[in-house]
C-alpha cells in the first residue's frame, strides 16, 4: 500500500485525554482515527472497520489490551496488522508481555509525538513489505501447483509410453524413482519377436523438464523398433540420431543397452557414458565389469557413431546389473558419496545372487540415513530359460512382426528406365521394411548390385567381360557401356523378390532375368570364390553372400536364395 494514502488507525485507550492526544497526532499525519475505550470495543471495531494499525493501551477495563491484542491477531489471519502498545508500565516483564500477546512494539507514556509518528511510518513500511511478500508467496504457490499438475500429466504420458514393455518380466528387477522422468532417468525393456529381451537404462543431462523431454522420443523409438525386430545396433543408431536431431546441443543421454538371448544364453552390451555395469556369475560369485566405451547417445552424427557391442556368454542364473550414477553419488549426512567401492563390496560379500538387488538398495538407503533416495536407478537382469520370460500378452506367431512379412514382387525395367534409373535404392528400401532384414542391408545391397549389373551389362547390353582384363580394356568397357545404354532401344531386366518366414528369421529369393541371349553358365561352375575379380560375373561374391545360386535356362535367369536369422 502506498504510504501516502490515509490510513485507518484504531486507538484503544480508556483515558479520554490520552485518546484526544493520539487522535490529534494521527489526524495531523493525515490518517483517520477510530477511537474506542476498552479491549472488547477494540476487537469489535477491528472486525467492523479493518484498521491498518492499532494503538492499544495495555490496561483497560472490561478487556485489557493483552487479551484484545491476542484476539485481533488471531482474527487478522495472514494479514499483518501492527499493534503498538501504549503503556505507562515500564518493568521488563510487562513490556515482554506486550510483545508476547502479539504486540509488535510499545511506546511509553507520556507520548513523544515525533517517535510515535516515526513508528507509524515504520510499521506502514513493514506492512507494505508484508503484502508484497504475501502476493509473491501466493504467486509462487500457484505456479508450484501448476507445475506439479503439469508434471503429473507429463508423467502419465510418459508412463503410457514407457511401461508398455516387459519390465514386469520375472527375470527383471528394477527400481526407478517415481519422478525419475524429471531426474532424467529412463528404463525401457521389451521382447523382440525372436524372443530376446532388450533393456535400456538412460540418464539424460540435467534435471526437470529438459531432461524429461528426451525420454519421449527415446522410448518411442525403442519400443517401435524392438517390436518390429530391428537389431540392437539399428535401434541404438536410430535413438542416437533422433536425440541428436531433436535435443538442444549439450543435452544428451548416457545409456547402457543390453540384449539377452535366452536361446544361446548370450548377452550383448553397449555402454555409452554410464558407470560400469557388471555381470555377476552365480557359479563362483565373480564379477565382470563392462566399461563405458562409447560417447553418450545424442552427441555424435550417425556417421561418427560407434555401435560395436560387447558379447558375453552367460549361464542360467547369472545376472547383469545396470545403474546410473545416482547410487554412486548418493551422499550421507556429511556429504560423502556412497562410491563404487562400497557398491562392489556388496557383490563380493554376497553368497547368494538373489539377495544382491535388495542389499544394494538397503545399503544405499542406510548410508543416506534411512531416507529413501529418490535419485537412484538400478536394474537386475537374470539369464533364464526363454519360456519363463515370454509374456502371455505376446501376439500369436503369425503376427509377430508388423511390417512386411511374406510377400512377393515383380519389377520389369524397360530401356527408358534402364538408361537413367538405379533400381537398387528402391529395392533396398522395400527390403528394409522387413523387420530384422534391415541388419543385412549391406549384404543384400551387394547381392542385388552384382545380379543387376550382370543382367544389365552382360545380358541386355551384351558387353564382354573379358575386356576388363586390362586397364585399357576396362576403360573401353565402360565407354561401350555408356554408348550402348544411350542407344538402347529394346530389352528389359526382370527382378522378382519373394520373402517367407523361416524359423526366427526368413528366406528371401531373388530372381533376376534379362532379355539377353544368356551364357554358358556351366563353364563358370569350377571357379572358386574370389577368383578373377574382374570377370567372374561376381559369382564368387554372390556365392559367398547367399545360401544358394542357380542359373536357369540359357543362363539369362538366375535365382539366389538368402536366408537370415534374427538371432544372428
Amino acid at each position, binding site marked *: 500500500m502506498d504510504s501516502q494514502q490515509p490510513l485507518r488507525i484504531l486507538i484503544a485507550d480508556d483515558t479520554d485525554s490520552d485518546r484526544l492526544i493520539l487522535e490529534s497526532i494521527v489526524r495531523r499525519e493525515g490518517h483517520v482515527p477510530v477511537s474506542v475505550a476498552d479491549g472488547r470495543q477494540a476487537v469489535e471495531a477491528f472486525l467492523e472497520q479493518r484498521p491498518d494499525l492499532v494503538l492499544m493501551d495495555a490496561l483497560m477495563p472490561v478487556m485489557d489490551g493483552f487479551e484484545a491484542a491476542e484476539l485481533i491477531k488471531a482474527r487478522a489471519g495472514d494479514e499483518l496488522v501492527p499493534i503498538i502498545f501504549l503503556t505507562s508500565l515500564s518493568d521488563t516483564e510487562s513490556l515482554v508481555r506486550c510483545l508476547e500477546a502479539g504486540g509488535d512494539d510499545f511506546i511509553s507514556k507520556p507520548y513523544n509525538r515525533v517517535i510515535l509518528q516515526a513508528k507509524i511510518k515504520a510499521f506502514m513500511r513493514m506492512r507494505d513489505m508484508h503484502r508484497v511478500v504475501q502476493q509473491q508467496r501466493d504467486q509462487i504457490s500457484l505456479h508450484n501447483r501448476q507445475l506439479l499438475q503439469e508434471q503429473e500429466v507429463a508423467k502419465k504420458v510418459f508412463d503410457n509410453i514407457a511401461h508398455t514393455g516387459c519390465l514386469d518380466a520375472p527375470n527383471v528387477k528394477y527400481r526407478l524413482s517415481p519422478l525419475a522422468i524429471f531426474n532424467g532417468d529412463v528404463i525401457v525393456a521389451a521382447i523382440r519377436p525372436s524372443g530376446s529381451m532388450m533393456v535400456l537404462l538412460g540418464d539424460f*543431462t540435467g534435471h526437470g523438464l529438459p531432461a524429461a523431454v528426451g525420454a519421449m522420443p527415446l522410448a518411442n523409438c525403442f519400443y517401435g523398433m524392438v517390436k518390429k525386430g530391428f537389431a540392437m545396433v539399428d535401434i541404438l543408431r536410430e535413438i542416437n540420431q533422433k536425440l541428436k536431431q531433436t535435443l538442444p546441443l549439450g543435452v544428451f543421454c548416457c545409456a547402457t543397452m543390453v540384449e539377452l538371448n535366452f536361446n544361446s544364453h548370450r548377452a550383448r552390451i553397449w555402454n555409452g557414458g554410464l558407470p560400469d555395469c557388471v555381470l555377476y556369475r552365480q557359479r563362483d560369485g565373480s564379477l565382470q565389469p563392462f*566399461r563405458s566405451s562409447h*560417447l553418450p547417445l545424442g552427441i555424435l552424427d550417425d556417421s561418427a557413431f560407434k555401435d560395436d557391442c560387447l558379447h558375453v556368454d552367460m549361464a542360467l542364473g547369472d545376472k547383469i546389473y545396470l545403474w546410473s550414477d545416482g547410487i554412486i553419488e548418493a551422499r550421507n549426512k556429511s556429504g560423502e558419496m556412497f562410491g563404487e567401492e562400497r557398491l562392489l563390496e556388496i557383490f563380493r560379500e554376497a553368497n547368494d545372487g538373489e539377495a544382491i538387488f535388495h542389499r544394494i538398495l538397503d545399503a544405499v538407503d542406510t548410508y543416506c540415513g534411512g531416507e529413501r533416495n529418490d535419485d537412484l536407478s538400478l536394474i537386475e537382469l537374470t539369464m533364464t530359460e526363454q519360456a519363463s520370460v515370454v509374456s502371455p500378452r505376446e501376439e500369436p506367431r503369425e503376427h509377430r512382426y508388423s511390417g512386411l512379412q511374406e510377400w512377393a514382387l515383380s519389377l520389369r525395367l524397360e530401356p527408358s528406365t534402364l538408361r537413367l534409373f538405379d533400381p537398387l535404392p528402391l529395392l533396398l528400401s522395400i527390403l528394409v521394411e522387413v523387420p530384422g532384414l534391415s541388419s543385412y542391408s549391406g549384404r543384400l545391397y551387394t547381392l542385388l548390385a552384382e545380379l543387376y549389373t550382370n543382367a544389365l551389362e552382360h545380358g541386355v547390353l551384351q558387353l564382354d567381360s573379358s575386356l576388363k582384363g586390362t586397364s585399357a580394356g576396362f576403360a573401353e568397357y565402360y565407354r561401350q557401356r555408356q554408348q550402348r545404354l544411350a542407344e538402347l532401344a529394346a530389352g528389359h531386366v526382370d527382378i522378382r523378390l519373394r520373402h517367407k518366414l523361416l524359423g526366427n528369421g526368413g528366406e528371401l529369393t531373388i530372381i533376376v532375368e534379362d532379355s539377353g541371349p544368356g551364357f554358358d553358365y556351366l563353364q563358370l561352375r569350377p571357379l572358386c570364390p574370389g577368383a578373377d575379380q574382374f570377370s567372374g560375373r561376381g559369382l564368387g561374391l554372390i556365392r559367398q553372400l547367399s545360401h544358394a545360386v542357380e542359373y536357369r535356362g540359357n543362363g539369362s535367369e538366375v535365382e539366389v536364395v538368402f536366408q537370415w536369422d534374427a538371432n544372428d
Partner: protein
Amino acid sequence: MAIQASLSTDCDELIIAIDGRFDFSSHQDFRSSYESLKVRPARYRVDLEGTTYLDSSALGMLLLLRDHAGGSSARIEIVNCNPEVRKILNISNFEQLFEIT
C-alpha cells in the same frame, strides 16, 4: 568468481579455469567466458585444476564450447583434472571429442 577466463598475450588461446563445482550453476558464467570475447581464439584450454566436481550438465557445457569453437575442428584441451573428474570424463568417453591431459 568460480570461473576465470584469460586470453593468452597473442590472443591465440583462451584459458578457462573453473574453481569448485562445475555444474549447472556455472552455466551462465561458463558460456559468457567465451561468448563475450571479441576475438576468436584458435585454441581453448579448460583448466580443471580447481574443479572438485563435474556433473553431466558440465559435460553438456563442454559440448556447447566445442560447438562454439567449430565442432569437429575445434581445438580444445582439458587439463589438470583430478582423478574423480577424470573418471567422469572417461566414463563419458569425452577423450574422443577433447584432448584431455
